């Protein structure tokens, strides 16, 4: 008995070193990029690579935020924010309504519709992207940010599954009590059920935010002109024409622009991570 308890304590102590190694592995590329973003040309040529810059400089940031490529970067930032926010809002609305209906309302064909969206998740890919290109061309929505938002906001089986699961988890007594008090269908939906499903909505919103902020291939396929690209797809196309010598290094400029691109989604995730876990634990009871 004592032995078992002792063993337990050893396991408890071992847990942290293992997790610190795992977390450092996850963090290291960020730290390296952060370090590179503070390094200038001088450091790259004269000293060996080190995690802590010997000659600390802010020139890379000044160059990226105020130099030749700054306008382009700012424009891509604007595009990304516009597309991501709209797509997140649209998706959350679409998926919440459908998830509520599929979980709590009785109507003919309900289970068939839900089954359809689940089966669709396992349907093999075909030339959908190619056909979407043609479709968007015919709708005159190709090379347009509105077109991108529409393509991004279909909802999707996983989101629908999660939202339905969250609505199923709300006790029926709440609904019954409201009905006895004479609340209408719409009132029950929007004033009672929707607020109770906030965790699911935030989960869908975070996942959609991450997916759209990082989306690459659809944007690259649909958008022709550099001024309409999103940040993720257009980052590589910004030409930071950097001078050959001086404090600025193209290595440092790359690190800086990459960090600035990743930053919004990292902040969103860190601020909302509690909701993320909560929603996922509720939604993934399978």
């Amino acid at each position, binding site marked *: 008995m004592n032995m078992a308890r002792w063993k337990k304590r050893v396991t408890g102590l071992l847990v942290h070193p293992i997790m610190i190694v795992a977390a450092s592995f*996850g963090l290291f590329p960020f730290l*390296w990029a952060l370090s590179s973003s503070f390094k200038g040309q001088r450091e790259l040529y004269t000293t060996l690579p080190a995690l802590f810059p010997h000659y600390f400089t802010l020139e890379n940031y000044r160059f990226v935020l105020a130099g030749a490529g700054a306008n382009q970067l700012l424009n891509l930032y604007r595009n990304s924010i516009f597309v991501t926010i709209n797509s997140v809002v649209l998706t959350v609305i679409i998926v919440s309504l*459908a998830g509520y209906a599929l979980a709590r309302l009785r*109507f003919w064909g309900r289970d068939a519709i839900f089954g359809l969206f689940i089966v669709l998740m396992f349907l093999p*890919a075909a030339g959908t992207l190619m056909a979407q290109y043609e479709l968007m061309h015919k709708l005159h929505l190709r090379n347009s940010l509105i077109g991108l938002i529409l393509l991004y906001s279909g909802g999707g089986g996983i989101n629908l599954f999660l939202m339905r699961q969250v609505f199923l988890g709300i006790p029926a007594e709440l609904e019954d009590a409201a009905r006895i008090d004479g609340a209408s269908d719409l009132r029950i939906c929007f004033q009672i059920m929707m607020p109770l499903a906030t965790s699911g909505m935030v989960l869908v919103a975070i996942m959609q935010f991450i997916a759209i902020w990082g989306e690459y*291939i659809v944007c690259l396929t649909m958008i022709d002109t550099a001024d309409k690209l999103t940040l993720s797809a257009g980052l590589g196309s910004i030409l930071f024409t950097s001078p050959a010598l001086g404090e600025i290094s193209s290595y440092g400029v790359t690190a800086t622009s990459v960090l600035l691109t990743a930053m919004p*989604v990292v902040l969103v995730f860190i601020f909302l991570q509690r909701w993320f876990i909560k929603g996922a634990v509720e939604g993934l009871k399978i």
Partner: protein
Amino acid sequence: MAKQAGKQTWRKKLGNLYGYLFVAPIVGMWLIFGAYPYVRGILIALQDYRLMERQSWSFFNSFIGFANFIELLQDPRVWQGVKASALLYVSVYPFVAVLALFTAVVLNRVKTSGLATVYRVLITLPWVIPVATSMPMWLQIYEPNYGYLNHFLSEVLKIWPDPPAWTSSASWYWPAIGLACIWKSFGHNALLFLIGLYNIPSELYEAARLDGANSWQEFRFIELPGIRNIMLLFIVTHVAFLGAGMVEMMTFGEGPANIGKTLALYGWQQAFQGNARLGYGAAMALFAGLVNLGLVTIVFKFFKSEKA
């Protein structure tokens, strides 16, 4: 009178009409931007569709039957693409599965909730940021002259005085991109497993503790069976390897002599670059999809027979 009664049962059968109203947006979006392009994509695969030639867009003008499929089966670059997709898969997912499961089981034993949160966030960050930013980060680490990896191997550890240029060496390309992809996906898959572990009722652990079970037995007899469905989800979503590895290759680079040109990437380039043969690209996508469907079916069959 009879007609009205019929109308009423019809109305009753339909049930709550708000149901249709609320489901309409998602179904509508799917019909326009999902279902229609899906069907049209299959038709495009049967056409000699070229983006630059307007008259080839019509199905009846350029229908060529299965010619695209016959061509792709004979195209050596398609088979190189299949090989690249398979190599990417084996250099990433076996490691991700083991690392993610191990991390989740360890993380489930962290009792301090604040620390558990910090660990969870840090291992998930690689998945959160865009591939277009994480791959350049790795390229900078691999950079032969200024990168940290070679400095670390030759100067800090002093075990490898002359380390290779990882991304442009034919023998080191796969380990290099493999490590970057493992880094990208081990954390969020660990989180997926962890959510499965959190959903295991705590009574099971308490009962095991009363019986004097050790950590290994807890893992073997409670946790592993408890996350069976999550593991099925992991395998099903990842076994479909043939369509994967497009964005990674585009942002990391295709390696020396294009050894990293996966089937998905080759198909995309055929469809949208050069001669822009949309039909040929669509045929490749459909081919990959059918192979993937076969793989998923086999996995499901296997899990079913396991259960029986």
